[in-house]
């Protein structure tokens, strides 16, 4: 049995050891905001924050996430209010098919938590592990930049 701390809630789980964190988040906890894309760390759609740092949850054994603070896209909104980054993605048309959005937003959040006013280069660098299959990068960068300015 393992205990996972996800979005400030503790979950006791009995799972086979070969389950990735992506699988457990999606299948056991029904937190399907985290997407499974390539499964090998290339696309970033499974991005979650582990102790505040963005990682590919498809390459983390769920058992190894025990003892760490896990944050998924579902943990961002507060009392029904979207996180400023989520709101900016909506307003800037940064969401096309939406598959990369949770990962993009979490990578952006990790950047802004560390550096509240990043430049464009730093933003592009921070999301360089997240692929947008619709290729809508410009609007994603615009959205992140708009939040950076507000800080």
């Amino acid at each position, binding site marked *: 049995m393992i205990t996972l701390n996800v979005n400030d809630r503790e979950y006791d789980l009995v799972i086979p050891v070969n389950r990735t964190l992506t699988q457990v988040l999606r299948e056991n906890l029904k937190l399907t905001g985290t997407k499974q894309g390539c499964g090998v*760390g290339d696309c970033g759609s499974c991005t979650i924050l582990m102790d505040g740092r963005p990682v590919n949850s498809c390459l983390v054994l769920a058992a190894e996430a025990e003892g760490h603070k896990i944050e998924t896209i579902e943990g961002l909104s507060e009392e029904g209010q979207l996180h400023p980054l989520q709101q900016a993605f909506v307003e800037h048309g940064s969401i096309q098919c939406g598959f990369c959005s949770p990962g993009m937003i979490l990578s952006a959040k990790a950047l802004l938590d560390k550096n509240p006013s990043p430049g464009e280069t730093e933003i592009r660098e921070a999301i360089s592990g997240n692929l947008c299959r619709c290729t809508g990068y410009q609007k994603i960068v615009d959205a992140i930049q708009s939040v950076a300015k507000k800080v």
Partner: protein
Amino acid sequence: MLLPKFDYHAPTTIDEACSMLGHYGAKAKILAGGTDLLVHMKKRLLSPEQIISLNKIEGLKEAFSQNGTGLVLGPLSTAAYLADSRLIQERISVLAQGASRLGSPLIRNRATVGGNLITARPASDLAPPLLVLSAKVTLKGPRGERTLPLEDFFLGPGQTAVQADEILTKILIPNIQGISAGAYIKLGTRKALEISLVNTACFLELAQDGSIKLARVALGAVAPIPLLTPSVSKILAGVKPKNMDDPVFREAARAAAQESKPITDHRGSADYRRYMVEILTWRTLKNAYSQLMEKV
């Protein structure tokens, strides 16, 4: 993609991990960051029966300065840690540069220096910087501990001097005496999530009189292993360049190209790679030398 079945062990000390590995031998694999191992397992290139994770062992994730000997890197230090650590940036910036170019930000938060060396990919971003820094690795197994220079560690693509029952426990970087500087350049077709076409690292150390006391250049992706180039060291040793445009740097770069043994593949041709070795070696040497001139 699903992971095959395995038994999972999370020892809390190196000794415990060693005895587990001694017991299971080749049936077991050591798990560090997992960014290579789990990918290989998902693709069924590897199906170890036993996984021994080092992640519950304290004290393996950091670098520290050891009196008299130099820097010690814990094998589980992540690429992100090496890229951002002030100690690494100040003392051995060439390693911080290499680490900052590995994979993507997401991969860098998991990928470890120990794992990067053990997987022994010819295009490794950390091996060339560590080679030019004269790094040594400590391996621990049932017969005890041994330390060997990194240049004796790589045997071929994916092959190292590590025995099936040994664990890489430390990476040692000897103290640097004089004024020194290093540089790293990675050439790829894009900036992130890229396997190098060619990468080069160099390290220069000055003697009191301003001549080059030590020069080391290492190359990635142009030989079966990350490659040190002794001919470059020979050409530059004792030389007192006029400035960063001194022709001796181009001569050294040409020697590096001659030492490289690139192959042609879908990323680039052997001829192109060899030429890029010359250009990139030249640029890293000029870059490191200009840093030195600022420090003098």
